[in-house]
């Protein structure tokens, strides 16, 4: 069995969000970049668990990005995985990125493709769905639990107000979120081993972009908090009713 996990580089969750070049570019100066938490904590760790249960599983990682993504990919390899691909491109929209992933997937015939539920920078939640359509595979989105039995997967996925338990025959694409696995810290052996694992850099195939970002903006600052004395809760309720008009 072969599994592909899609990983992305994102700003740290505490990074200051600012823009340059007339609000057309994210200000990267001084920002620490990390492995997208959904990709790392849920998609990658669950795939590693599957490989631990069945060492014959071959686990590949893929990133579409520039050379500055290599430290992130090495960190992912330190957690686990046999080898990684980096498609050398740091531009393009989600359709372009999905097209690159689908191309590598076609060459390697994966039984299972995992993505995180979304990246914490562009929040598109689109790559998994797009890859599945490009490959003509079933897509289970927002999975919270994944059990593999032969070529059948039983997957819990979140729906409004609850969960659905789905059964699907592989190959399939699954987007992963909280519940799938627990965050891990790479150990020294993993970090040392990751240095010699193959990281294959390939050039992107021709693909269109369907969208482009014209500009960014920051939300207007809050006017400031109105503090109400702790002994006057009725005043808070009155303000919410008469001023904020929320109920």
């Amino acid at each position, binding site marked *: 069995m072969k599994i592909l996990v899609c990983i992305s580089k994102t700003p740290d*969750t505490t990074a200051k*969000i600012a823009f340059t070049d007339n609000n057309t570019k994210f200000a990267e100066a001084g920002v620490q970049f990390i492995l997208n938490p959904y990709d790392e*904590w849920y998609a990658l760790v669950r795939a590693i668990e599957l490989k631990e249960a069945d060492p014959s599983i071959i686990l590949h990682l893929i990133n579409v990005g520039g050379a500055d993504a290599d430290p992130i990919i090495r960190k992912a390899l330190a957690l686990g995985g046999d080898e990684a691909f980096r498609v050398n491109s740091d531009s393009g929209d*989600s359709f372009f990125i*999905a097209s690159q992933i689908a191309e590598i997937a076609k060459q390697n015939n994966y039984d299972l493709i995992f993505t995180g539920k979304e990246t*914490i*920078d562009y*929040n*598109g*939640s*689109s*790559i998994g*769905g*797009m890859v599945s*359509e490009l490959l003509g*595979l*079933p*897509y*289970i*989105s*927002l999975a*919270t639990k994944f059990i593999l039995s032969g070529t059948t997967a*039983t997957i819990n996925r979140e*729906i*409004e*107000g*609850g*969960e*659905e*338990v*789905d*059964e699907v*025959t592989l190959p399939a694409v699954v987007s992963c979120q*909280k*519940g799938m696995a627990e965050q891990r810290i790479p150990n020294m052996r993993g970090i040392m081993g990751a240095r010699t694992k193959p990281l294959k850099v390939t050039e992107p195939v021709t693909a*269109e972009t*369907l*969208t*482009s*970002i*014209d500009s*960014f*903006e*920051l939300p207007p600052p*809050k*006017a400031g*908090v*109105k*503090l109400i*004395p*702790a002994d006057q*809760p*009725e005043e*808070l*309720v*009155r303000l*919410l009713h008469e001023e*904020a008009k*929320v*109920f």
Partner: protein
Amino acid sequence: MSVLIFLDQSEGHIKKNSLEAASYGAKVAELMGTTADGIVLGNVNDDLTALGGYGLKRIHSFKNDKLNHVDAQVFTDIIAEASERIGASVIIFSNNFSGKAIAPRLSVKLKAGLVSGAVALPEISKGFVVKKNVFSGKAFANVSIKTEKKIISLNPNSYKINKAEGKAAVVEPVIPDPEIRTIVKEVNKVVGEIPLSEAEIVVSGGRGLKGPENWAIVTDLAKALGAATACSRPVSDSDWRPHHEHVGQTGLAIAPNLYFAIGISGAIQHLAGVNRSKTIVVINKDPEAPFFKAADYGIVGDAFEVVPKITEAVKKMKGL
């Protein structure tokens, strides 16, 4: 070049998020000088003609037991066929769980650029530019869709439902029996609770509440307000509350009209999931809690004393 809105249903009823999408889609159609249709998959008990009240001209209803649950692949194929047949140039989803499953697939199938998580109407004078949330609610991006066909998925609670009088025509196209590849074995829904993603008011508790046994003050206030309950990450990580209640950067991102944060300090990751709430109330005994900076109203005080009094005041005002 009409507009087509996917109307998501659950247990026979059109979801509230989809009515927002319908109102939004009708407005997009008006801006484009065209009409808006809706598409419903599965068996729905609601009166579909009443969807005309949201500005929809026709409803394409695909009745079939096999379509009562979302299979992303099958739904994509049916929506793609319908949109081609009626000549839809803009397709609108709610960016809810179903929208996230279907819209990206449809984008590939129709080669239609997708903006997911839209928060405003498209700017048509500038081409077709849609404002969406990025950086987990900390910023917006204005995204141009460059393709002839376009897909927008609208963030829940970002557009007000517009209801007037009106009747839609209902058409029931006949399709071949769908081939479902994802088998739904079980559906487990929390009964009697308002789903977080649809709630207009959310009452949320954090570590400051000290343990799951103290949650009654949160649930009592939620009950009085008709609100959903939520929690911060440490609370769900400690299993004080179920995982689906976790709001924040790595949990659910929500944008209710009112968000009550009780005993939550307001870490940047938590704020990222809730800062689009229209009004934020923070109750915390620490006056230095960072959440106060993001709040509209605040009370510095002991939640165990303050919150039950707020609940009483709410009940009194509502005459409960």
